[in-house]
């Protein structure tokens, strides 16, 4: 059989209690890349089976939310939007926020919702959250499409408005990846902690909402009083959301140093998240 063709070098692995925090096998992850794409495909295909609108849900959700924001925060609370049309302002902000929060939500229950599978088969567990992040990035792409359609419609109706994308939109893919990586890092932390202590699972929706309010999604950063500005920018999502808005609408405050800080904390959270995740995965089935 042809399977022997790739067994030339025998694979050997040791079985021993391993309490080390620094063990991360990239080779093994690469070896199972087929699984990554199949899981990604499963997530995407299965989610909208037997739904009328299918993947349009990816699009409708943020659109509806942006409309509600326009009504509540724009019309009722009258929070200014730096001159940008309200719907576009909220859509752009939500894009930045969702890049992070969707990947967080998709990964934070990794151990909980895969307990059965993890108890029966071994594969590098990290593949599951990675596939979930891929799914949320594709969804983000769809949402960006919606934004562009709405933007084009707006410009058609009001040609003189001057609202439009900035050349910094070229950075968008990188920004999206950074935000997703941040969400993944936090998600890995949460899934590792909730594998042992379920408490966090119940607090999650509330904490996530709180985090969104602390992030300039429904208000511009420029409205934050100067004395709190540094504090607001310490939130690693804040500079990303502002940069999204700057790229998509030309408004917003881009603070390069804050972006660098955001990148640094993302790396820190992601690396520590991966480490605690791989430390947890090795015996997690005993406690699930």
């Amino acid at each position, binding site marked *: *059989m*042809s*399977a022997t063709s790739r*067994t030339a070098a*025998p*694979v*050997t*692995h*040791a*079985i*021993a*209690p*391993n309490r080390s925090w620094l063990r991360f096998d990239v080779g093994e992850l690469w070896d*199972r890349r*087929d*699984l990554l*794409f*199949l*899981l990604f*495909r*499963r997530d995407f*295909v*299965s989610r909208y*089976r*037997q739904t009328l609108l299918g993947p349009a849900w990816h699009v409708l959700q943020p659109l509806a939310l942006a409309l509600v924001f326009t009504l509540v925060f724009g019309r009722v609370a009258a929070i200014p939007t730096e001159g940008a049309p309200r719907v576009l302002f909220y859509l752009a902000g939500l894009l930045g926020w969702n890049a992070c929060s969707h990947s967080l939500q998709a990964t934070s229950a990794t151990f909980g919702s895969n307990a*059965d*599978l*993890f*108890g*029966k*088969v*071994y*594969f590098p567990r990290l593949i599951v959250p990675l596939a979930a992040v891929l799914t949320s990035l594709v969804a983000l792409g769809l949402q960006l499409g919606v934004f562009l359609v709405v933007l084009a419609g707006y410009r058609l109706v009001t040609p003189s408005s001057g609202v439009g994308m900035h050349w910094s939109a070229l950075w968008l893919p990188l920004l999206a990846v950074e935000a997703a990586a941040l969400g993944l890092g936090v998600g890995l932390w949460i899934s590792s902690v909730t594998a*042992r*202590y*379920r*408490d966090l699972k119940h607090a999650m929706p509330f904490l996530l909402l709180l985090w969104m309010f602390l992030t300039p999604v429904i208000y511009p950063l420029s409205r934050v009083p100067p004395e709190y500005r540094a504090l607001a920018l310490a939130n690693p999502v804040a500079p990303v959301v502002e940069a999204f808005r700057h790229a998509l609408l030309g408004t917003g405050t881009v603070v390069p140093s804050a972006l660098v800080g955001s990148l640094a904390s993302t790396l820190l959270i992601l690396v520590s998240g991966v480490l605690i995740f791989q430390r947890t995965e*090795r*015996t997690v*089935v*005993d*406690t699930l």
Partner: protein
Amino acid sequence: MTETVIEIENLSKAYRLGELRFGTLREAMSRWRTRSRREARPSPAIAPEQVGPAPNTFWALRDVTFSVGRGEVVGVIGRNGAGKSTLLKILSRITEPTSGRGLITGRVGSLLEVGAGFHPELSGRDNIFLNGAILGMRKADIRRQLDEIIEFSDVGAFIDTPVKRYSSGMYVRLAFAVAAHLEPEILIVDEVLAVGDASFQRKCLGRMRDMSRTHARTVLFASHNLEAVQRLCGRSVLLDRGRLRACGDTATVVAQYLGAETPFAAAGTWIDVAGAAREGTGEVRVVEVRFTSGNARAAGQLYADGPAEFELAIEAVGARRVQSIALGIRDPAGQKLVNVDLAALGETFALPEGRSVVRVRIEELHLKPGTYTVALWIARYAGEGLGPGDVLDFVERAMELEVVDLAAPGFRTWLGGGAGVVTCDFELIEISHPGALPDRLRSPR
């Protein structure tokens, strides 16, 4: 001796009790607070030697050492809770041992459950890819074998239907088909064959045998189905409450397992029932019982289609005449399944003072594997019905006996999940298809 591919040394695994299911922060904090008080109170179901290194832990596996050579098929047997699954989980890397070490050479494929990761919304074809990838196959391998897998599964035209529309039989067959096409160098299989119908089981066992014979693949096979283990495995290991009790030639290990000192009565030895709770006048009492199937392969234990011989040692305070001497077998629910009653002979038996021994033989037991209780009875019949002094001895629960899972060759009965209370041999006369079209009219697939 061939090259060793699995080598484990002093492998141990301790589990925490109370914390197996739920862990909340509050529990962790209170545990931390009470740690100094040390209230170690392991549950009574756990044997003292299984109490682990710390309070509220127990050893699911303790100092297990053995090795497996390339191409060997090794059986893992033991009662429920003996540590079979824990051992296989550690070897499959699903969890880590608490202490000890092991070395595995070769790609491991493990099959602790069929259809792991099947998604109900996806089609059969999609699930083949997904499940295959989860089990460690590459997309290219799956694609190469796709037709073969579909053929093996026998789901035919339904391959592009979501699996949630499948019957449970189709679902299992598809899952097995993927698993059967795994080509790891070392295959680890747990009790999965308990599902699926008999012919499909045979197909899978055959495939496992092929893997080891023609492709020199190593198989580790845990099962309660002793017959399958005996057919498939040259060597076996016996686990008992986490420890390795025996390791060697399968026939020897199985005999040791069946003859092991257990909570159940052992075959071939006199079992003292003199002290059992009983009713009756006590003029005549059954004091000892002995049983055997007379089959060395089963270590004398009773098995589904086997014969059963019972000997009842009776003691009488004086000469008595009785018409009914009976032995009943009940299932755990208390339903009487068998009643061997000498009253059926319509004779009167004269028992002298002192000891008598009654021997009875059941030609074929026809009970499915499991645990049964034995009741004993001695009575006089005084015409219609029983008077108050007519029951001389009645022991409702004299002892428990186990009917073991071992069918004689050629006995066609299903002993797996869904087995009936009573077993019986049968013969397939034919399968006809009166409504089927002749072959040449059928559309090609």
